[in-house]
């Protein structure tokens, strides 16, 4: 293993998630011809879209050195609020209030973590449970779809296409471009990396670290809120039980994408590749008729492998 040159290592390791994804796709395609059918490729894009939005938000937090377990509950909250508002006041009001609800949860998380210095794991574990409770309270535990269902145009958004690509896929595609520029090419973005990489050093060089950390949670909450709205369109209703365990899938995807749980490292497009790895794995296992009990073993093994890779890399 040591025979690999340093140059080789540099050029490979940065693109490791992409290589993993390509290998996974090639292997699946060799095992079943259905994998590369246009229908299946479209399916993979749509299936990845909502998780991609959540994972991008999670990437902000993880680069900033934090962690957010509350995104799954936020998805449900935003979806239900969007549905409830939309039934009375129209689609635009519904979408905006859904995203704002998510941003509100993120702001609360950010204030508790950055200003009160509560450990992010505990703080967001608490908000995960709290927000889920709020969802059940406002909905009475029942799905929200109104008397005659959600507005037709909103439901169509969950299934229709623009230039041959689903609207649900356009959302993360556009976000990926805009937010990548924000993260890598603006002073604000560089401050997030600096804060996550070394908080002390960032503070000493004049970065308002508390504000930066808090802002990452707002991004995460707002994007989870947007994902919740997208999910409500997909499910044609606001679902109080939606998004359970999404936080774990999102974190796994971000780490699969090579971001470090120690902060300061990661890229949005790599997290999206991480999402694709998770989705292609599930899709491939379904196409290959792998028993659902074994699917859990496979997904768990991939998560463990990703965490181990993260650990080994940080030791190097």
């Amino acid at each position, binding site marked *: 293993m040591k025979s690999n040159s340093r140059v080789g290592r540099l050029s490979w*390791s940065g693109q*490791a998630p992409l290589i*993993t994804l390509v290998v996974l796709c090639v292997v699946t395609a060799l095992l079943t011809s259905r994998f590369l059918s246009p*229908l299946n490729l479209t399916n993979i894009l749509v299936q990845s879209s909502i998780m991609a939005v959540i994972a991008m938000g999670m990437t902000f937090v993880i680069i900033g050195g934090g962690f957010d377990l509350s995104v799954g509950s936020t998805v449900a909250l935003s979806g239900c609020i969007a549905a409830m508002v939309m039934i009375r006041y129209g689609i635009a009001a519904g979408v905006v209030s859904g995203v704002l609800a998510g941003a509100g949860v993120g702001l609360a998380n950010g204030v508790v973590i950055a200003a009160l210095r509560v450990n992010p794991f505990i703080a967001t574990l608490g908000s995960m449970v709290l927000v889920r409770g709020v969802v059940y309270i406002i909905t009475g535990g029942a799905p929200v779809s109104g008397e005659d269902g959600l507005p037709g145009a909103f439901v169509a958004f969950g299934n229709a296409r623009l230039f041959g690509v689903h609207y649900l896929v356009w959302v993360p595609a556009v976000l990926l471009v805009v937010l990548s520029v924000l993260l890598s090419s603006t002073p604000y973005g560089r401050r997030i990396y600096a804060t996550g990489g070394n908080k002390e050093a960032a503070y000493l060089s004049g970065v308002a670290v508390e504000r930066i950390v808090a802002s990452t949670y707002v991004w995460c909450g707002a994007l989870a809120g947007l994902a919740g709205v997208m999910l409500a369109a997909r499910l044609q209703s606001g679902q109080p039980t939606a998004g359970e365990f999404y936080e774990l899938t999102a974190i796994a995807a971000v780490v699969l994408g090579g971001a470090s749980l120690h902060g300061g490292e990661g890229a949005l497009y790599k997290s999206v590749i991480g999402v694709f790895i998770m989705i292609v794995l599930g899709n491939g296992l*379904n196409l*290959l*008729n792998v028993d659902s009990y074994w699917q859990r073993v496979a997904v768990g093994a991939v998560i463990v492998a990703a965490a181990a890779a993260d650990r080994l890399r940080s030791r190097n």
Partner: protein
Amino acid sequence: MSQFRQLAFAAALLLPALAAVSGPGVHAEDKVTIGVSLPQDDNPFYIGMLKGIRARAAELGWDVTTVSSNEDKLKQINGVQDLVAKGVKGILISPIDAVGVNAAYDAAAAGKIPIVSLARGSTSPNQTIHVAMDEVQVGRDIAEWTAKKIGGKGKVAMIMGPSGAPTFRNLAQGYNEVLSKYPDIQVVFKTDGPMTRERGLKNAEDALVANPDLKAIYAANDDLALGAMQAVLAANKNGQTIVTGMNGVPPALKAVKEGNVAMTVELNPVLWGRLGVDVLATYLKGDKVEPRVFIKHVIIDSSNVDDVLAKMAPPKT
């Protein structure tokens, strides 16, 4: 070397290994493969249903592909999309929600694949057939049985299911429809809410305190009934106040045998699964099938509980 390359390599090994574990991944093209999507992998009801599906499919020489959803609606939609991409000939689904997974039905319709709902149904216009329990009729049967048992008069309490769920609305509708024909029977207590034993207990306690001469308690399912039974036993009213359940789960059957729950209704999930495959087979042959097909239900009380329990017991070796 990069650990990521090891990871990629591990992923490359994983798929074929798993495919090998669960049998050949590539099937002869002429063999009929059907897809199955159920709400849970670990619920005895759905395990029984899948058993019935697999058994009947094997008799027909069909292959069965399952996708799991773990009560996650999006996962159920995704799984059905995968089944459509796989090119299955038909899909059996028990939708998690009547509205939430309609996109799964749309995906099947887009692939021109028939999709049959088992047990739970969908509002989707793309639902090909719904193999359902005749909920209103079950409600009527429970009420007829109860009215006969209490001699056509007395006070009755109803512990109903969640108000939003159509199944429990239909059950209660059938029940009330029959009781309204008995002028001497009054429904004196009515609640709706979650289907837990705890709630059955609490509501039955309240009903018994308010109405010491209560004759019967209708519980919308066996969990509620088992809770209500505890309240009846604690109040020493066994024999004076009867409790009826619905579903025929093993602890309820035991309670019927012991005389603590008066009756329950058996919905056999294995037969449900078999019927689903038969309905799909009829449809695929091109024969006409009604959009709603009802599964038979059996009333279980002290007269036949021994037979039912004997059938459920594992065969002696």
